[in-house]
């Protein structure tokens, strides 16, 4: 029987009520008394020298309050990068300054040149059009391999080249890998593109800066996944505002998917401008603006080799990847193709030696950073496409080849510096074969054939690393932040609890799932627990929500804080029951003395803590409020197996997803309904990447896929119902909940399944197509079939 409350229950989401009735409170719903509006003049040139910005005519336009250019920001810092990668020679990466407003040069279409603050948004836009700009256009670099050729135009004149870093991992293994490949019985090689994407949360970004003259306090309302990170980066590195004078509020946020992790120049602008004009300043991005200002995702070009011995055991993997950074380093950009990508190249397989090379490159394009999965989808896609190709070359069953090479004993130390604690890859594959009804494939193939359609089946595995940690290790790897999480648990006198978490919910359902954990621990109703998040003024310093970390790291902090609460309440209960603390048991909201019928209710104990008349004041303080910071000892390693069946229309190349199945190991599951929903959404984004989505720049750096008219978002009729299962949880061994994280799995695991399925469909029809780069649009598939 499914549980109806606590851990493991599909509790309905309490936050839904406000979202379903139009009572959500998103940043654009907030209006500060007297606010002005900013419109940003953005570059429509990818690369050029700014000769002149004349704002005089614009400043005289109706409603204009002030126009800001780079000169106004001369005294403040640039937008910082939060991760410093060290290259294969031991040198730090090239790190150009990232100004709030363009200084001297523009480096991508969309870069902010000026901010016009006016009484209304339309007036600000009217005036922005009246700014006279003289920009001398320079040749742009868009293609990564061209960008690192000698003589290529330089994105940053003060850097030696467009190479941000050349990273080798593990550099000491390179010789062994080359040797293993040279001596292999079979080597499979694949060159592929991991297509550039735009995250596209449905809520465009919004930022409102406010300044209180009376106190000198600044407040930023922003669409962020991590308000504390924004406060730290913007306060300490850009504007020089101490954290106690800066409050960052991220209220209801309409999806993030990574692109709302980063600190953006617009946030610094509105905070700075509000103080300068002594009025709140609001910026609301349009969707068109989002396409040229939100950090993009993916954009890798990779060559990968897999060596196998005569028995088809994997013996080595070697990759060479070009990773696009765009024109500037976004907050976590350098970490994505390195530590979030190279460390996952072992996948689910026991390959003795692996070497990963990554060349990060500056181009005249929008900055690129983490997008759902961030590095792990790129690793998974390469590896799982490659294994599929190897199986076809060797004439063996792709599932059998995977099973033969699975890691089966845990813990397992990979040759790429991580240690998998638990997993059962055969179990998820067994489940996948069942829920995907693989035994029925031949019959469905025949049905498709009768309709004149080509059917194909694609299967793949994935592993990811979530809850990136511990802080001291990631510090050695270049992180300029800690990666712990925090929680303060406040118990009120009458027994209700408020949990103030550094995690942030922007769709993940924290407000429902977190109380399930506490309710289970104490034995009270979930409705007695309230979650507070998204405001630096009333939550402890936390790192926010990304990398599938909220429950594994934030939830663990909450458990630790609650354990402190329980320990203290047991002391109080022992006093009230006149018993030894060691004999006190807490169950179903009652403290009882073991072996007796003496008990006291949760609410009586919490009341005693705040009305300490009968209370051991000499031993413990009154009140019930505890904070915990949790820093994990390792990543968590969710894993799974995915299957996709497609039909290809041979006349048009159009691919339709007929079935999609996902068997995941997320460890323990708190709310299965929410977990399934996360997988569904991830699959849709992965299918979107595989079939529909792709950023296209022309050779001059103009964005051709600049709106939903040309960037294809997955819609309801592009997708089927999915079959998902997460019954094979092998609990994480190093966090108190045994959870692993589920937010990114779908997006990581699904693209190779789709592409494998399309290649399968074509090859079953006699085609010799071995690979098509994503997105597998009808025209690309048709071109491949007819080339």
């Amino acid at each position, binding site marked *: 029987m499914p549980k109806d409350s606590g851990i493991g229950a599909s509790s309905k989401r309490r936050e839904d009520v406000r979202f379903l009735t139009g009572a959500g409170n998103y940043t654009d719903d907030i209006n500060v008394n007297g606010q002005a509006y900013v419109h940003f003049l953005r570059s429509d040139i990818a690369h050029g020298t700014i000769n002149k910005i004349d704002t005089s005519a614009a400043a005289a336009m109706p409603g204009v309050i002030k126009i800001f250019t780079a000169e106004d920001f001369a005294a403040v810092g640039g937008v910082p990068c939060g991760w410093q990668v060290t290259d294969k020679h031991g040198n730090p990466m090239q790190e150009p300054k990232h100004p709030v407003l363009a200084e001297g040069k523009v480096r991508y279409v969309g870069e902010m040149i000026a901010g016009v603050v006016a009484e209304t948004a*339309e007036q600000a*836009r*009217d005036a922005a*059009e009246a700014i006279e700009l003289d920009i001398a256009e320079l040749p742009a670099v868009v293609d990564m391999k061209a960008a690192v050729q000698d003589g290529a135009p330089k994105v940053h004149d003060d850097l030696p080249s467009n190479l941000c870093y050349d990273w080798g991992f593990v550099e000491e293994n390179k010789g062994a890998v080359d040797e293993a490949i040279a001596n292999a019985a079979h080597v499979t090689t694949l060159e592929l593109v991991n297509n550039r994407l735009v995250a596209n949360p449905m809520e465009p970004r919004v930022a409102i800066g406010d300044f209180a003259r009376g106190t000198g306090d600044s407040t930023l309302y922003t669409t962020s996944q991590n308000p504390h990170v924004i406060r730290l980066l913007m306060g300490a590195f850009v504007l020089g505002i101490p954290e106690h004078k800066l409050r960052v509020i991220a209220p209801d946020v309409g999806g993030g998917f990574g692109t709302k992790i980063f600190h953006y120049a617009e946030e610094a602008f509105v905070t700075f401008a509000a103080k300068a004009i002594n009025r709140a300043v609001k910026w609301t991005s*349009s969707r*068109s603006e989002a396409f040229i200002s939100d950090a993009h995702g993916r954009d890798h070009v990779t060559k990968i080799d897999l060596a196998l011995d005569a028995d088809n055991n994997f013996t080595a993997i070697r990759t060479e990847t070009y990773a696009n950074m765009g024109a500037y380093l976004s907050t976590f950009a350098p970490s994505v193709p390195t530590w979030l990508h190279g460390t996952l190249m072992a996948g689910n397989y026991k390959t003795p030696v692996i070497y990963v090379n990554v060349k990060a490159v500056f181009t005249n394009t929008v900055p690129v950073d983490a997008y759902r999965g961030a590095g792990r989808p790129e690793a998974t896609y390469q590896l799982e496409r490659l294994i599929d190709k190897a199986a076809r070359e060797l004439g063996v069953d792709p599932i059998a080849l995977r099973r033969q090479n699975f890691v089966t004993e845990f813990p397992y130390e990979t040759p790429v510096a991580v240690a998998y604690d638990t997993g059962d890859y055969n179990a998820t594959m067994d489940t996948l074969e069942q829920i995907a009804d693989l035994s029925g494939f031949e019959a469905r193939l025949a049905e498709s054939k009768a309709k004149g359609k080509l059917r194909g089946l694609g299967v793949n595995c994935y592993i990811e690393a979530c809850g990136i940690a511990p802080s001291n290790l990631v510090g050695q790897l270049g992180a300029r932040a800690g990666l712990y999480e925090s929680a303060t648990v406040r118990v009120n006198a009458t027994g209700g609890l408020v949990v103030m978490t550094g995690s942030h919910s922007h769709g993940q359902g924290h407000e429902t799932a977190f109380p399930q954990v506490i309710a289970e621990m104490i034995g009270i109703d979930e409705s007695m627990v309230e979650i507070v998040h998204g405001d630096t003024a009333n939550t402890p310093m936390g790192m926010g929500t990304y990398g599938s970390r909220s429950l594994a790291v934030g939830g663990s902090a909450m458990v630790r804080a609650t354990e402190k609460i329980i320990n203290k309440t047991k002391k109080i209960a022992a006093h009230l029951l006149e018993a030894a603390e060691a004999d006190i048991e807490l169950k179903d909201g009652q403290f009882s003395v073991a072996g007796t019928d003496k008990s006291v209710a949760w609410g009586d104990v919490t009341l005693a803590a705040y009305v300490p008349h009968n209370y051991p004041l000499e031993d413990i303080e009154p009140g019930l409020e505890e904070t915990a910071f949790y820093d994990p000892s390792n990543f968590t390693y969710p894993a799974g197996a995915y299957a996709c069946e497609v039909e290809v229309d041979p*006349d*048009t190349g*159009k691919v339709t997803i007929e079935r999609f199945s996902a068997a995941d190991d997320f460890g323990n599951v708190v709310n299965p309904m929410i977990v399934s929903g996360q997988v569904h959404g991830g699959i849709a984004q992965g299918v979107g990447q595989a*079939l*529909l989505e792709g950023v*296209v720049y022309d050779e001059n750096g103009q964005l*051709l*896929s600049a709106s*939903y*008219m*040309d*960037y*294809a*978002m997955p819609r309801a009729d592009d997708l089927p119902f999915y079959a998902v299962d997460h019954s094979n949880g092998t609990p994480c061994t190093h966090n108190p909940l045994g959870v692993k994280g589920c937010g990114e799995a779908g997006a990581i695991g699904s693209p190779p399944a789709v592409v494998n399925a399309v290649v399968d469909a074509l090859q079953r029809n006699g085609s010799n197509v071995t690979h098509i780069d994503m997105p597998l*649009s*009808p*025209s690309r598939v*048709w*071109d491949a079939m007819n080339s």
Partner: protein
Amino acid sequence: MYAFEFEKPATIADAVAALGGEEAQALGGGQTLIPTLKQRLAQPGTLVSLKGIPEMAGICVADDGALAVGGATTHATVAASTEYPGLAGLASHIGDPAVRNRGTIGGSLANNDPAACYPAAALGSGATIKTNTREIAADDYFQGMFTTALEDGEIITEVRFPVPEVSNYQKFVQPASRFALVGVFVAKYADGVRVAVTGASEDGVFRWSEAEAALSANFAPEAIEGLSVDADGMIGDIHGSKAYRAHLVGVMTKRAVAAAS
């Protein structure tokens, strides 16, 4: 959007008068024009809504049997009509349900987007575009991408469609915009078959005369086997090459013939 005045006249005469004003522009359902204004790609002084003119809305069968569709009739209304199934089928797949509740046939034909659906129906049916001043044969009306025979201030008041024996429209959508990457309208009349293609050509909607001749002789998909349109002159973009579009013209034509009813 740039600032503009808004007027909503109740008669064609008042609309014509309003459109005579400086920088005045007609507003049909606005489903293309309003997004265009948001991008500040147009700067009208006055928008004259044609949505408040009762004589321009609705559908009826004319004395000669043709279907007369008022210029301000929404796609949803046409989609729900029964007299001309091929036309209703086409209208039922324009945009999405909300767009169909606002967008109008007159607005679509006046804009003549090269990837819009209605131009294929009008050209493929040999329709007559009636305006406040004259009647224009569809063959004379479409003059290339976003270009028509309409004069400034001229309003499409009605579109008259001769109803064919059988017809069908097949749209292969551009994956992002869901406009036609290639759309083919086929209509079989007693005196011959018309085939109109939208989405594909750099010159906008066009008639595929070779296919018309072949299908007039034998109205069957196999009749156009071996025929092809020249890839030169087709649109090539990030969603498909010229050759791909040329290929799709043949595929969609065959499918439209097979599905015609």
